[in-house]
């Protein structure tokens, strides 16, 4: 059974993009309308699929669409929409001042992350009738976890802001009780409206991400020490935020026919595979062998799709 929102994550360089792309391909070949999205600022989806992909959805083949979210572009769009909006509200004298502040914020840390997150939620919400499944190829672990846990953290913060604004407005209304004009002005508070719209959005994002029937997070790792440790930490965090963990995909397993040169590595790998089985066995471990060459293009992705299909097992 496939889920509506499937995430592939894990340490950098373990083959997340390849797994995500080949999984998306295998779904598409079965007639499921699939969109594969890369949220990694350093995109490699286009390389894996072997055709150019941009910040707009492109059709790769029948039932398969692809998209690379461009953080810089998203942030720019957001700033422009604010500037547009502002022209109707404030006088020209202040516009310059605001533009200065927009530029500062544009460069501030977290802006790109937030921009990606925005697009990401848009996609999840809009996708309904266009696509059956969205496969997310996420950025290396730390980045992604911050992205997924963003709504939970920000909701608390924004709740506090809303409470504060409500109190201020109540006081203001109380003070304006005998002034009709001011009262009219206070009736519709844009700041309160914007804040609550944000909060609702975060709430919806959280609902989508923690919906175990619809969202699932698969980990991709190699049979090595560091990826195992990182995956373990990441799984713990996802559990804390109540996001469903799907399978653990072990990529690039050296096959026995690799020859004498790899003998030592294979022995070490067997040990790690045992550890992986012990620690992540409950989620279901999917094994993918190391291939002779790098995977590139649709035909080569297809060769993986049989084994990657197992991630739906649970």
């Amino acid at each position, binding site marked *: 059974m496939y889920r509506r929102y499937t995430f592939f994550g894990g340490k950098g360089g373990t083959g997340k993009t390849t797994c995500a792309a080949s999984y998306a391909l295998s779904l598409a070949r079965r007639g499921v309308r699939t969109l594969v999205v890369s949220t990694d600022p350093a995109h490699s989806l286009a390389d894996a699929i072997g055709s150019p992909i941009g910040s707009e959805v492109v059709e790769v083949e029948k039932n398969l669409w692809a998209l690379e979210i461009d953080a810089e572009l998203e942030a720019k769009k957001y700033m422009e929409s*604010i500037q547009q909006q*502002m022209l109707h509200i404030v006088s020209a004298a*202040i516009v310059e001042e605001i533009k200065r502040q927009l530029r500062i*914020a544009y460069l501030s840390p977290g*802006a790109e992350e937030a921009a990606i997150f925005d697009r990401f939620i848009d996609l999840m919400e809009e996708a309904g009738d266009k696509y059956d499944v969205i496969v997310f190829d996420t950025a290396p672990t730390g980045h992604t976890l911050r992205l997924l846990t963003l709504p939970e953290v920000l909701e608390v913060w924004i709740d506090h802001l809303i409470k504060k604004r409500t109190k201020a407005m109540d006081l203001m209304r109380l003070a304006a009780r*005998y002034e009709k004009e001011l009262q009219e002005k206070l009736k519709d508070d844009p*700041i309160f409206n914007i804040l609550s719209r944000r909060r609702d959005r975060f709430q919806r994002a959280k609902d989508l991400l923690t919906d175990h029937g619809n969202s699932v997070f698969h980990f991709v790792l190699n049979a090595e020490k560091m990826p195992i440790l990182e995956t373990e930490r990441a799984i713990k965090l996802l559990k804390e935020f109540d996001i469903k963990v799907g399978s653990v995909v072990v990529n690039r397993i050296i096959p026995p026919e690799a020859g004498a040169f790899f003998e030592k590595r294979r022995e070490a790998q067997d040990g790690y595979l045992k550890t992986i089985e012990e620690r992540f066995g409950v989620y279901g471990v999917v094994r993918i062998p190391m291939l002779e060459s790098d995977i590139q293009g649709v035909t080569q992705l297809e060769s993986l799709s049989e084994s990657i299909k197992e991630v739906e097992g649970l």
Partner: protein
Amino acid sequence: MVGRIKKILYYAKLFMFGTFLDKRSAVVRKEAFDENDDLMLLLFGDYLGIPNPISYYMLELLPYVASDMDAWERRIQNRKMILAEKAAQFDFD
């Protein structure tokens, strides 16, 4: 006749408002402004060097508060006489 009564009533109302209500509502209004200043600090503290986790999302509020921004920055940076300010608020004369 009716016009005169209306006029008298109107002035009476203004008198009452000025004597009893206006002062009180001024206190409340001051409190409201203070509360709003605090909120602004939470929203745009990063302009004063206080990190803000969601400054990016607060940008869309900017057009609505921009006209007050300058005055607010001045008020916040010049909060040396908080006690005097508070005392004035309660109007002990």
